[in-house]
């Protein structure tokens, strides 16, 4: 989908694919490339990966990955970092999106379920329900945060363009709200930016302008006509 201004809610949409067994897409930070993953109907734990230009075209197959937990396109879509389950642990894979060749960068604990690359180098991981860790970032030595402020369940995160903060989307049950908070990696302090009574949140995107774009999942409802 594409629009003329970041505040417009009118999108030009193009259907990329359809599947009864699961399909998901990711976009590179610069908006030039799309990663499309389909679960195999007879083996939903295995996904077939294709990368293509946002503008269209057949794309390039990156093969299949079994046990995929999370992924992150970076360097303008030239590389794909992926977490996949491997036995009792998880592997952090680096995949060259032009050749499809992959290598194992690191083995992480088995509870990592989301990661993002930080501009300037390093990663941020979500673990379990509420824990977040940083590795290899300039703003802070390797640290695990057991909690981020009052957030009990962390859903998504996105590092800031300057690599010094992380936006997190999570849930605070005491106020039954979805909350977006900013974690300052230098000080370790967090600031709640806004709270909404909603059903869930999508992955926040920290725009180059400094604004945060956050998809909010409204509570489902039925309409009678």
């Amino acid at each position: 989908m594409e629009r003329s201004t970041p505040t417009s809610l009118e999108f030009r949409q193009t259907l990329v694919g359809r599947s009864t067994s699961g399909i998901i897409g990711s976009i590179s930070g610069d908006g030039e490339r799309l990663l499309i993953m389909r679960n195999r109907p007879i083996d939903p734990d295995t996904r077939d990966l294709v990368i293509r230009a946002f503008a269209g075209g057949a794309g390039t197959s990156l093969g299949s990955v079994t046990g995929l937990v999370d992924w992150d396109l970076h360097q303008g879509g030239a590389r794909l970092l992926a977490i996949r389950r491997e036995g009792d642990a998880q592997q952090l894979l680096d995949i060259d999106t032009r050749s499809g060749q992959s290598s194992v960068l690191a083995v992480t604990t088995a509870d990592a379920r989301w990661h993002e690359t930080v501009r300037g180098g390093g990663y941020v991981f979500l673990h379990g329900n509420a824990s977040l860790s940083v590795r290899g970032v300039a703003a802070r030595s390797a640290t695990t945060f057991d909690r981020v402020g009052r957030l009990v369940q962390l859903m998504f995160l996105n590092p800031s363009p300057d690599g010094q903060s992380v936006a997190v989307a999570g849930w605070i049950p005491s106020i039954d709200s979805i909350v977006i908070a900013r974690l300052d990696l230098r000080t370790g302090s967090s600031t709640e930016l806004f709270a909404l009574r909603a059903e869930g949140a999508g992955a926040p995107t920290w725009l180059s302008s400094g604004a945060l774009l956050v998809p909010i999942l409204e509570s489902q409802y039925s309409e009678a006509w």
Partner: protein
Amino acid sequence: MLKPGALAPIRLGLAPPTSATSRFARNGLRGVARENIQRSDVYVIRGSGIVPER
């Protein structure tokens, strides 16, 4: 006795999609969304559905 298929159902309409997730590029102008579409179809079957036995 009931004879299956004796009456054709008529589709009345579709319920709205249930949810969507979106991801955006850093310029905020381009994005990709996944919509989990689960629709409810409503049908009406005219008549009782029971064909009197002859």
